[in-house]
Every structure is written in structure tokens, then in C-alpha cells.
């Protein structure tokens, strides 16, 4: 009280200062509440401030919220505390934002709003921030409203809508306004309109608002409940009875555990109710003992099935909306089902994107194999190791070229060269001698595969090596809250398409392609036409292996580079080629598409279990081959004979 008088005296004494700003006047009328505000007392201050419409109000509120407001004991005025030096603080005027005076630290008392008060101040600030010239500040304000929706925010939000020029923020404001009105609107009609406007929105907060309106409480009773009833709750008899027990409306069922506890609790030495404990090693014996305890009144009696049925028959279980207005809940129900349809649609779209991206990875991994296995009929178990070689080439290049974009540009052709060279060497040294023994090719190339894997382990170590993608490939393309895909996957998709085109061009439009097809169909005839089958086989094998190398760089960018990365793809790759149809690039595309879509679809049913998805996919493929042993795109005519 004395302080108040003192402050009053000081205020009247420093009359000239009063004229400097109306803001200061308003503050002085509420000086005590400003200096040590409480959650309840602060409301009139803020009301007055907002009513004044002064341009300096938002800045003051921010400083207040940030605990920067001090009161100078010498003149009793409020200032913003500036820099402090040698216990002397620069005082900044709250209206003009100019440093006007200095004061010793001891003479200043800080206004210390507590957390609750700062929230109130923050809410008041929101309306200023909603019209802030900086778009980011406006977005932040919207986000803060979305975090803590409140009936008070409807008016400021509506007010800021007219002046909003940015179309995106305007749409966001409208959406948020709808959410607020849907939950806190004044009239039923306003709320229903807002809820209907939400039906196209798939954002989580809109869904949460609708779900909140539709919140129910489940009640148990013997008669029909009053209020806004959502409908009866379907429960299994066991659940229903358990709920009755929870509500204290029925005695609990005697479980084996309860029998056991009762027997142990009433045991006298080695026996209970005259029965030795050692004989109670079956459920029937224990029930008999418990029955004796129950007749003695030392345990609650068994609940019979008839009792359970009777209790369930007289009780009913209903869900009742916490929202009392049936019109609102009805509108929300309709709106929510529309939203859920939208969400399902978008999730399907997202799944489709995932499937395409997985399919392009399989396609990339398998396309080299489609040439060596599909066109030449050579089983190359070391194909996965060529993928690994390509990935390690990319890793090594990144060690020497620090610029990620440039290193990628170097790595892609280099990976092709490295893997192609390895492939050609393998063809010349090993596979050439085994063209008539395909099963042994499988085993010999498996030998090469384990040797190469171990070599990679010896050289690069067992830990995974990173292959960093350039900055422009990181991040993801976001269509909306549910549909998004990372740029790296888009790049892999584009790469897969490019390879498809390239291979089709080489095989169908070039001299090499013509010769490859000729040698594939009939080596003897091709040789008599002047084609060197040895050379063609070598080049084809080099091409297939080189493409595996490039696939390795692409796969390494989104997965990690290990010595076993190739082995993870080899079985899938073979299956892609076999399912698609051997000897045809389109077949490989079809196979990769089928496997990718299938795996993602199965995953869609149970997203947490990718192992199960793979298992079922392989089982499906085994069955699929029963019905189309030659794959989706089967060769016809003579070419199919081999």
C-alpha cells in the first residue's frame, strides 16, 4: 500500500513525463499490475492497451513477455532495459524506442510476468503478429494458434483475414478459422458451416478438431441415457462384463489367479480348508478347495454363467457425445468420413509413389542381369558384386573429389568402366569356357562372388561406407501432408527410365544390338554371317556388368555401401528377370513393376513388418511361375526354344 502511494506520488510529481506518451499513462494507471502481474489481474491492463490502438503496444507487449520491462524507482516510469555496463543500465523509451536515460542497477525493479501471464500476453500479441509485415512472423503466429486453439482467437484471426495479401497464408488462415469456429463457434449454424468447410482438408489438425468434436464418453446404465447419444457400444460378453465389474455393478469372475491367491491367503500350514496343498495340482482340485472356502465365507463365491448373462441382460452400454448439439456432431460425422476418404486416397497415392520408386530400384539392379542372364543365358551370381564395385567406386571418388556434384559426375562413368572391365575379365577368363554348362557357370560365378565380397571386406573394412548425395538431391518433394517422395528416389526413377531408353536404343537401333540379337538367337548362323560371337559375348557381358556398376552408385546413394549390399539384391534381381520374362528388356520392366507394386501393397496392409511382405511376395512369385513359367512377357517362336 505504501509502495502504491509512493508510486502515485511519484507519478503526479513527474507530471512533464506524462505528456511524452499515452502508453506510459495507461501503464501508470495499472502500474502495480504491470510490475508484478498475476494471471487474473493482467486482463484489464491488456484490455486497455488493446483498446488504445497505439502503434507501440505490440512492441511493449513483446518486451513485457520477454521480461525486458523495468521500472525506474527514481521517476516511477517503465522502460525497456538496454545494455548494462558497470551496474548502470541504459533505459529505452517504450514508445520511441530511443535510449533516453541511464539508471543504476539497484534503482530498477524488473517486471517479472510468470508463465501463465506470459501466455496471456502471448495470446494478445497474436493478433498483432497475424498482421505482421513479415510473412514468416504471420506463419509463426498461425502455428502458435494451431498448437493451442482457443475461442478468443477467432476474432483476431477473422480481423486479420481482410488485410492478408499472401494467398497461401490467407488459405491457411481460413482453414484455421474454420477449425476454431468448428470447435468454439457461437451459433450452431456457424459451427456446422465451418465443419462442412473442413470436409476437404486432410491436415492432421483439421482431423484432430473433428475427432475432438466427436469425442464420446461410454456410459453403463440400466435405462436409455439422455444427451447426445452416439449409439450403443459393441463389446464382447467378456469385455462387457469386465466393464460392469469396473463400474462396481457386478461381482468379479473368479479367475485361476484369484483362486490361487485365495488358497494361499487361507492356507493353514500344509493344507487349506482341510485339503493338503500338495494335492492341488489341477484346476479342478483347486476349484473344489476354493468352493469350500467360499461356503465357509472366506472367499467370494463363484460367479455362474447365468449370473453373468443376467447382469449383461439388464445393462446397456452407450456412447454419448461430449458435444451436446446433435446438429454439430452429425455434420462432423459426415465431414470426418469425407476427410477419411480423402486421406485414404492420398495414402494410396503415396503408396503408389513408393511402389514406383521401389520398382525402379529393382529395375536398376536387375537390368544388367536382364542382359547377361536374359539375353545371353549366363547365370552370373557375381552380378551383385558388380553393383557393390560401382558403389565402392563412387565412395573412392568422393574421397578424392570433395564436391559432391562433380564427384557424382565422375563416379557414374567410372563405375561403368570399372564394373564393365571386371565383367569382361570374368567373361574372358571363366564364363567363356562354361557356355555349355550353365549350372557350372552358376557355381563358378558364385566362387567369384564370395571372393570379391571378401576382398571388398579386406580392403574397405566391414563397416558401412557413406556415399553422400549432393545437396540438390537431398530433401524431398512434398505434395501435401501425406504424399511425399525424396528427390533421390525421383533421380533413381529418372535414371531407370534413361537406362530403359538407352538399352532399347542399343539393342534395337545399333549395329551392336543387331549382332547381339543375332548371336543370342543362333550363334552358329551369326558366325557364318561374319559376326564374331566371342567379341559380341564379351561386349554384351561388359555392357550388362557396367550397368550394374552404375546401378551400384545409385543404390549406394540412398542405402549404405557395404560389401554385402550386392548379395541383398541378387535373388530379387533374378526373380525380377524370371517373373518378367527372360530375354526381353520390357519383361524386366514389367517384372520390376509387378514386384515393386506387390511388395508395397502387402506392406500397406501391415507396414511394421517388411519381412513378412518379402516372404509373401516370394511365395507369390513361386506360385506365379507355376502359371506363367516363361514370365509376363514371354518370347514366342524360335527364340523361345533355347
Amino acid at each position, binding site marked *: 500500500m505504501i509502495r502504491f502511494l509512493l508510486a502515485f506520488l511519484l507519478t503526479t510529481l513527474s507530471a512533464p513525463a506524462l505528456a511524452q506518451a499515452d502508453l506510459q499513462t495507461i501503464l501508470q494507471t495499472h502500474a502495480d499490475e504491470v510490475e508484478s502481474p498475476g494471471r487474473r489481474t493482467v486482463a484489464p491492463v491488456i484490455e486497455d492497451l488493446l483498446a488504445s490502438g497505439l502503434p507501440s503496444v505490440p512492441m511493449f507487449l513483446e518486451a513485457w513477455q520477454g521480461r525486458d520491462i523495468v521500472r525506474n524507482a527514481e521517476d516511477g516510469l517503465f522502460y525497456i532495459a538496454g545494455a548494462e555496463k558497470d551496474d548502470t543500465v541504459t533505459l529505452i523509451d517504450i514508445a520511441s524506442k530511443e535510449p533516453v536515460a541511464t539508471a543504476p542497477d539497484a534503482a530498477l525493479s524488473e517486471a517479472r510476468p510468470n508463465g501463465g501471464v506470459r501466455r496471456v500476453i502471448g495470446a494478445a500479441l497474436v493478433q498483432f503478429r497475424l498482421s505482421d509485415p513479415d510473412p514468416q512472423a504471420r506463419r509463426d503466429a498461425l502455428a502458435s494458434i494451431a498448437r493451442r486453439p482457443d475461442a478468443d482467437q477467432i476474432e483476431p484471426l477473422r480481423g486479420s483475414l481482410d488485410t492478408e495479401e499472401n494467398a497461401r497464408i490467407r488459405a491457411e488462415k481460413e482453414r484455421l478459422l474454420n477449425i476454431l469456429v468448428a470447435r468454439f463457434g457461437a451459433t450452431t449454424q456457424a459451427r456446422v458451416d465451418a465443419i462442412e468447410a473442413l470436409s476437404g482438408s486432410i491436415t492432421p489438425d483439421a482431423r484432430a478438431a473433428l475427432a475432438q468434436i466427436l469425442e464420446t464418453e461410454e456410459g453403463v446404465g440400466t435405462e436409455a441415457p439422455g444427451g447426445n447419444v452416439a449409439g450403443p457400444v459393441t463389446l464382447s460378453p467378456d469385455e462387457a462384463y469386465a466393464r460392469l465389474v469396473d463400474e462396481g455393478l457386478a461381482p468379479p469372475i473368479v479367475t485361476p489367479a484369484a483362486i490361487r491367491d485365495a488358497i494361499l491367503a487361507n492356507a493353514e500350514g500344509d493344507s487349506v480348508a482341510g485339503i493338503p496343498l500338495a494335492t492341488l495340482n489341477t484346476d479342478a482340485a483347486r476349484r473344489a478347495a476354493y468352493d469350500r472356502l467360499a461356503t465357509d465365507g472366506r472367499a467370494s463365491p463363484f460367479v455362474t454363467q447365468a449370473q453373468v448373462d443376467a447382469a449383461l441382460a439388464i445393462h446397456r452400454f452407450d456412447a454419448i457425445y461430449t458435444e451436446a448439439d446433435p446438429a454439430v456432431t452429425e455434420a462432423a460425422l459426415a465431414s470426418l468420413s469425407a476427410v477419411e476418404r480423402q486421406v485414404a486416397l492420398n495414402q494410396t497415392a503415396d503408396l503408389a509413389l513408393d511402389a514406383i520408386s521401389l520398382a525402379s530400384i529393382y529395375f536398376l539392379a536387375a537390368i544388367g542381369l536382364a542382359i547377361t542372364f536374359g539375353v545371353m543365358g549366363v547365370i552370373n*551370381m557375381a552380378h551383385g558384386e558388380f553393383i557393390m564395385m560401382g558403389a565402392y567406386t563412387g565412395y573412392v571418388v568422393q574421397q578424392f573429389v570433395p564436391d559432391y556434384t562433380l564427384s557424382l559426375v565422375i563416379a557414374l562413368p567410372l563405375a561403368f568402366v570399372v564394373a564393365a572391365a571386371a565383367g569382361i575379365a570374368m567373361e574372358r577368363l571363366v564364363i567363356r569356357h562354361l557356355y555349355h554348362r550353365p549350372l557350372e557357370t552358376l557355381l563358378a560365378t558364385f566362387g567369384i562372388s564370395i571372393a570379391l565380397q571378401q576382398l571388398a571386406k579386406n580392403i574397405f573394412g566391414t563397416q558401412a561406407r557413406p556415399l553422400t548425395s549432393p545437396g540438390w538431391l537431398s530433401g524431398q518433394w512434398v505434395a501435401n501432408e501425406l504424399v511425399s517422395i525424396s528427390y533421390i528416389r525421383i533421380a533413381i526413377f529418372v535414371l531407370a527410365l534413361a537406362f530403359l531408353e538407352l538399352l532399347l536404343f542399343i539393342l534395337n537401333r545399333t549395329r551392336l544390338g543387331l549382332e547381339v540379337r543375332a548371336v543370342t538367337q543362333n550363334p552358329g548362323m551369326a558366325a557364318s554371317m561374319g559376326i564374331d560371337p566371342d567379341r559380341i559375348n564379351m561386349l554384351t557381358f561388359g555392357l550388362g556388368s557396367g550397368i550394374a556398376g552404375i546401378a551400384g552408385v545409385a543404390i549406394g546413394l540412398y542405402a549404405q555401401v557395404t560389401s554385402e549390399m550386392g548379395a541383398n539384391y541378387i535373388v530379387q534381381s533374378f*526373380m525380377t528377370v524370371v517373373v518378367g520374362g527372360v530375354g526381353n528388356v520390357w519383361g524386366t520392366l514389367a517384372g520390376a513393376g509387378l514386384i515393386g507394386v506387390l511388395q508395397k501393397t502387402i506392406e500397406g496392409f501391415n507396414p511394421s513388418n517388411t519381412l513378412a511382405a518379402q516372404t509373401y511376395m*516370394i511365395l507369390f512369385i*513361386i506360385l506365379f511361375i507355376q502359371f506363367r513359367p516363361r514370365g509376363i512377357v514371354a518370347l514366342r517362336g524360335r527364340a523361345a526354344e533355347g
Partner: protein
Amino acid sequence: MTDATLSYRAQRPPIKRTSTMIFLGTLTVFVVLVTVLSGADLISTSFVKLLGKTLCLALAAVAMDVVWGYTGILSLGHMAFFGLGGYMIGMWLMWARTEAIVQANLATQSLPPTPAELRDAIGGQIFGVVGTSDIPLIWSFAHALPLQLILVVAVPGLLALVFGWLAFRSRVTGVYLSILTQAMTLALSLYLFQNDSGLRGNNGLSGLQNIPGFENTSQAWISLTFFWASALALGLGYLLFAWVVSGRMGSVLRAVRDDEARVRFLGYHVESFKLFAFTLTAIVTGIAGALYYPQAGIINPGEVAPIASIYLAVWVAIGGRGRLYGAAIGAIAVSLLSNWFTSGGVPDIDLGFYEIRWTEWWLVLLGAGFVCVTLFAPKGLGGLVDLIARRTDPDRQGAYGPDTGAKRTSEGAE
């Protein structure tokens, strides 16, 4: 029937009989030797275990030889049957052992447990690691050894029967069949890797070396007994397969390998013969697995992975396809060598600028060696026996007949 064919048929069995007798004789001598050495404490228990496990692998390799070397089906799934056999016996071993432990724990309580409580406790013990205590349906027979022993035979057999029927019926052959069997193996191992597969996910089954009912017997005796059992199984399996591949049945199987279409035109139901060979070998491989894993002590889904089956094919190829003793020799030689190299038993070679540590370089050596065997010695180690026996096959590249492998002029003139 001409005299020539009759005399040919009359000649053949003694040769086979000889190799079988020599193999069984060698096996017997080996068993006696190991028993004596082990009795005299000259070799360790773990080495006896290693030998026992190797004999099981040899049995699997002999079965693989029948299906690949004789029938021409390169199955990349036989180690899956081996693993399944192991899982089936492992379920009983684990159940019985856990039951004994749980019973001992609950016996200290004043109130004896009911059967339901016992079951719950066992379920909690076994499946606690995968976050459940419910006992999956596939463990319904785990409490009874005879039932589980039937499953050792039935599960791999049925899987092989169904899979083989599907595959052979649609005439998937050659490399496609290999890839299909590999897909089956991959599917199985991925399934087993799941926690809700009911077989403890990637934890697998463990503690299998403790045989319930023999807690007081020393591990030395147990491993020796298993060694004998493995040797007996190998001997019986060898006899069975020697019988299968000799005589008419063997001739048809070899004919299927060499030209399936021709055999079909001759009126044989090729699919039945292939299915028989596939299923029979799967069952024997399953039995081999059931003997192997109690000696190994642990089984997990990694053992079923496709690579294990490829290794089996590698052993058979190195040993020599198309002769049963070759497969056994290959499996024994490669797995013992592999063990020797990877356990650090081989001294490292210091080249001055680089030190070759065999634990790191063994797989490179194996891979390279394997390529060399495929390229230069298609007969494998078994080919050495031919050299010793001075039995060289006629070089069948020649003027007679349309294909490679047709008889030479000289043979035709006989």
C-alpha cells in the same frame, strides 16, 4: 536284349559295390580311431563335436549329390531342409529342457503348479525374448519326442513334396529351377527371421547341446554318442542312396539328368522320378540337420539363408558330382579346411609389404579354388580316385553321333 547289354549290366554292380564297401570300411575305421583317441584323451571334446558335425554335413552332401549329380536338379534349397530338421528337433530339446527348469523352480513353492500354470511358465521362458508368452500352434507337439521326431521327417519331406510337385509339374528346369529353389529358401529364412514366426525370430533356438534326461552325463560322452549316431546315419544314408542310384531306378535318374525329354518320350513319368529323388533327399537332409544342431548347440534363421545351400553345392562340386563318395569327401575336406583356416590354425604369411591373415583371405582362396575346380577339374576330388584306379573314361568328343558326348568311332566299332 543283346549279350552286350546283359554283360554290361552284369559288370556294373561290383564296381559300385566296391566303392560302397571301401567307403563304409573307411568310415568304420575312422569311427573306431576317433573313439580310441577320444578315450585316451588325445583329442578334445570340441574336436569330436566338429567331426560329428562334419559327418552330418557329409550326409547332406551325399543327398545333394543324388539330387544334383545323379538327377540333374541343382537344388539351392537343401540346406533349408537341413535347417528345418534342426528346428524340429530343437523345439523338443528346448521345450523339454525349459520344462525341467520350470518344474524345478516351481517345486519350491508350497502350492504345486497346475498343468496350465506350467505351460504358461514354459511359454514365458521360451518366448520372453520375442516379447510374448503365448505358445504358438506349431509348438503343439513339442512336449513329445516321438511326435517331434516324426516332424523331423515330415516337415522337410512335405515341404519338398509340395514345392517339388509345383515346380516339376510346370516343367521348370535347369537354372530356373535353381533360382526358384533359392527363392523358396530366401522366403523361408525371411519368415523365420520374423519375431511372430513362432520360432523365436532371429534369436533362434539355443541351448540345444543340453540333452534333457542326460544332465548328469558329461559332454564328452554326449558328443561321442552323437558322433557315433552321425556316423551311423551317414553309413545308412550312403547305403540307401547307393541302392537308389544303382539298378534301374538309378539309370532312369541319370537319364533324366542327361536328357529329360528323351526319357519322357520313352514313356517314363519324369516328374515322379524327380519328385521322388527331391523328396527323399530332403528327408535325409532333414535327418542330418536333426543330428547336426544338437551338436552345434544353436540354430538361427541365418543357417537357413540361401548362401548355406550354395555352399552345399560347392562341396559337392569340389568333391566330384555323380559319385557318392566324392560328395562326402568334398564336404568333409572343405568344411574341415574351412574350420582350420578360419579358426586361425594356419600360420599367417608375411610378405614383407603385406601380411596375409588367413581368417581374412580364406574365402578369397576358397572362391578362387572353386573357380579353378569348375574350370580345370570338373570331376573334383573324386577324379583323383580315377587316376589312382587308372580308370579313365573314354574321351567322348568325336565323330560319331550329333552331340558332344556321343560315342567315339572306336567304341562304335566294338
